[in-house]
């Protein structure tokens, strides 16, 4: 691919315009990452609205130079910033504009310098910067950009790739830096927003506009156990949050630094950003009147918003209560692969412990998740024959009531979880779930690690092999053949549903082909293809 050494101002506008639409698609998902009492009730929406205002102004730029566009964006962002995250985002654009000062177009080196400036200005706007937020993500992204340029890369696209990768890593790391995120099992919403914007810009430059129309940004999942559907335990905090007070102050000869100093002791989460003619102020205070009175002396106030955060918190608690499951029993599953983890989460598992073949979790790993899950009655699905014993150990180490349903494979884990009865008592439920195991057959396809002879089969190293309910009974030169051999061993006339989970390295085309061939061969079957993302096994297939 040819290198892009310089990008014109117009492309700067178009790439962030595309990024804004990209962000818009995931704003609801980003909202869902919010953790109260982290300020800002709806980060995704706020960032999206800020980006709209940013890009509206970009289209009104007086010229098409990079500097002109960037300045217009900064102006638009300041005028339309919403919420904490929006204000910080506006600082990022302001820094970018300063970094691109006088540039007609920009090179990779210019971009690196501008990102550095953006991170720097973003930090400056916040009175007490917190790590593990969008500030950290912007900083990490900027350093990676600089490092790539310093390494001699001049291609804007591949430099931006390094930026985006670093941003992703940084987002995944936010729970390590900020405890509230870790407790809630989510990544920082604002950081996710910054990543999504950068990713959107990169995709545009790569010419993936068609794909952007069809797909939707991914929310980054951290290394922590994936807590999918269950809200974290609700701590009733007695400290009042006060009022989230936000407005745009217009006047002459305003000095954001002086205003910031004056307001510093008046509340929490203070942000003051802007220039001498317009300043945006965001503060959480118990006395919004005093803030407004003070500001009224300096100029005129616009877009004034004062919201009672205690009320918001109350609403939030109510909402969490409504989302509470109808039962007091929680199910924890062990699974490797983001896709499988999502499957268990979507089916109601309270948490997923990462682990599986060749990466068995320790008793302590499972215990930790058990303790952090807010129910006192927990059913564990080990989903691997080597993990059942480990899971059985947990009971002796916790006060909680534990039942282990001895699931030996992922498909067994799924049918057990599906059979969960919301009305049944704890012990009955474990029994009901265990009973369901006989209704599924598991096919696993992997590659032999060495040449061997087993069950009368001669197996070469790296040859595809197939297991039926844990027993190695098929070998062939292709995955397709292995699966076909295994299916003939099953009483498939009685089966109704086939679910194919593809592994992390499985080729999509091959998976499609397998799925289609199964439906052609057994038309009565309903077949479903799911990305499991599991390591080692190219396919895990459930036959019910």
């Amino acid at each position, binding site marked *: 691919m040819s290198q892009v050494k310089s990008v014109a101002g117009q492309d700067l506008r178009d790439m962030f315009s595309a990024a804004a639409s990209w962000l818009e698609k995931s704003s609801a998902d980003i909202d869902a990452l919010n953790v109260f009492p982290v300020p800002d009730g709806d980060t995704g929406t706020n960032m999206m609205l800020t980006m709209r205002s940013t890009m509206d102004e970009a289209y009104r730029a007086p010229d098409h130079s990079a500097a002109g566009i960037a300045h217009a964006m900064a102006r638009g962002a300041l005028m339309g910033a919403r919420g904490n995250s929006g204000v910080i985002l506006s600082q990022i654009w302001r820094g970018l504009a300063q970094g691109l000062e006088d540039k007609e177009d920009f090179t990779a080196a210019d971009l690196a310098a501008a990102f550095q400036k953006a991170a720097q200005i973003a930090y400056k706007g916040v009175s007490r910067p917190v790590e593990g937020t969008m500030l950290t993500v912007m900083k990490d992204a900027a350093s990676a950009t600089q490092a790539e340029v310093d390494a001699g890369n001049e291609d804007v696209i591949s430099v931006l790739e390094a930026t985006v990768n670093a941003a992703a890593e940084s987002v995944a790391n936010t729970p390590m830096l900020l405890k509230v995120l870790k407790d809630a099992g989510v990544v920082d919403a604002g950081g996710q927003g910054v990543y999504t914007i950068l990713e959107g810009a990169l995709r545009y430059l790569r010419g993936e506009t068609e794909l952007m129309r069809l797909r939707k940004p991914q929310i980054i999942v951290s290394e922590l156990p994936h807590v999918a559907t269950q809200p974290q335990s609700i701590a009733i905090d007695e400290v009042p949050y006060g009022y989230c007070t936000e407005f745009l102050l217009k006047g002459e000869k305003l000095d954001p630094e002086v205003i910031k100093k004056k307001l510093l002791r008046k509340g929490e989460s203070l942000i003051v950003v802007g220039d001498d003619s317009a300043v945006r102020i965001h503060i959480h205070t118990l006395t919004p009147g005093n803030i407004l009175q003070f500001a009224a002396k300096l100029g005129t106030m616009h877009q004034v918003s004062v919201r009672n955060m205690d009320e918001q918190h109350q609403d939030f608690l109510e909402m969490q209560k409504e989302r509470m499951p109808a039962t007091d029993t929680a199910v924890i599953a062990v699974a490797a692969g983001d896709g499988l983890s999502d*499957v268990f989460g979507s*089916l*109601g598992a309270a948490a997923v412990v990462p682990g599986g073949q060749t990466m068995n979790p320790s008793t302590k790993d499972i215990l930790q998740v058990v303790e952090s899950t807010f129910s006192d009655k927990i059913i564990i699905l080990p989903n691997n024959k080597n993990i059942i014993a480990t899971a059985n150990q947990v009971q002796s180490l916790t006060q909680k009531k534990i039942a282990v349903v001895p699931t030996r494979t992922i498909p067994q884990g799924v049918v057990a979880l599906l059979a969960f009865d919301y009305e049944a008592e704890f012990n009955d439920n474990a029994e009901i779930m265990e009973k369901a195991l006989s209704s599924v057959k598991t096919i696993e396809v992997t590659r032999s690690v060495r040449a061997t002879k087993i069950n009368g089969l001669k197996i070469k190293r790296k040859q595809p092999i197939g297991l039926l309910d844990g027993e190695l009974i098929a070998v062939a030169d292709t995955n397709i053949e292995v699966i076909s051999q295994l299916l003939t061993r099953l009483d498939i006339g009685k089966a109704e549903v086939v679910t194919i989970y593809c592994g992390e390295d499985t080729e999509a085309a091959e998976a499609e082909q397998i799925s289609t061939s199964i439906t052609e061969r057994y038309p009565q079957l309903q077949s479903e293809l799911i990305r499991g993302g599991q390591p080692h096994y190219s396919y895990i297939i459930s036959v*019910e």
Partner: protein
Amino acid sequence: MAVKIVTDTLSDITEDLAKELGVTVVPLYVRFGEEIYRDRVEITSEEFYRRLVSESSLPSTTQPTPNDFYQVYETLAKETDEILVIVVSSKLSGTYQSATQAKEMMEGKCRIEVVDSLSVAMGMGLIVIAATDAVKAGANLDEATQLVRRAISRSHLTAYFDTLKYLAKGGRIGKASGLLGSLLSVKPILTVKEGEMAPLTRVRSVSAGIDYLCNYAAEFSNIEGMAVEHATTPDDADQLVERLGAIYPKERIYRAVISPVVGTYSGPNAMALTILEGEKK
């Protein structure tokens, strides 16, 4: 004078059965865009389900007006001085309010009791049937009302859903919301608990759903009444009835079609089984 019984169309009591039982059924309304139909009076179930799946926008539903009930009360008051009104769960519809307001409009011209069935479909229908039996046996309004109140906790509705899309969009998902968002295609099995929808479990196919419903029924040792209803799949419902025949006389199982207003939330391919437990002796 014998007590007259009134219910709404959500009881899924068909016109024929209503005539036989001497029950007056007040229709709710179902709306497609600008067009409003009286449930099962101006739109048949067949027509409804055809449009439900073919039209791009989903229908909505409205409770009967207080006046609808008032008209019914007025007419019945000419023949009786005691009316028992059994309506759909007040957590699922505002029908209870309309029926109560209409009672006030009557200003004591007739003794009226309005009971919230805390259920829907045949979950309420079997209660209505039990009430008519009691009235036939000579129960007065107070006795019949007491009987209905006791029957509410013995009526168990279990429903197989092909999808929760309609229930969720219609805002009636209740405690079953936890079943939404599955990455696998699953068929939820729900029940009605304390007047609203609640999850029971999930299956992956119709036949697994039928298995579940049969096993569910087999748990009861004292069955007073049973009903099976379907939205668009009479064959599956027949199969279910056939299987239930092993635990309860098939010919005594009431068959019904899920009425359009309920169908707005159940969607096509749904099936429901209701068991009215017998009273402990």
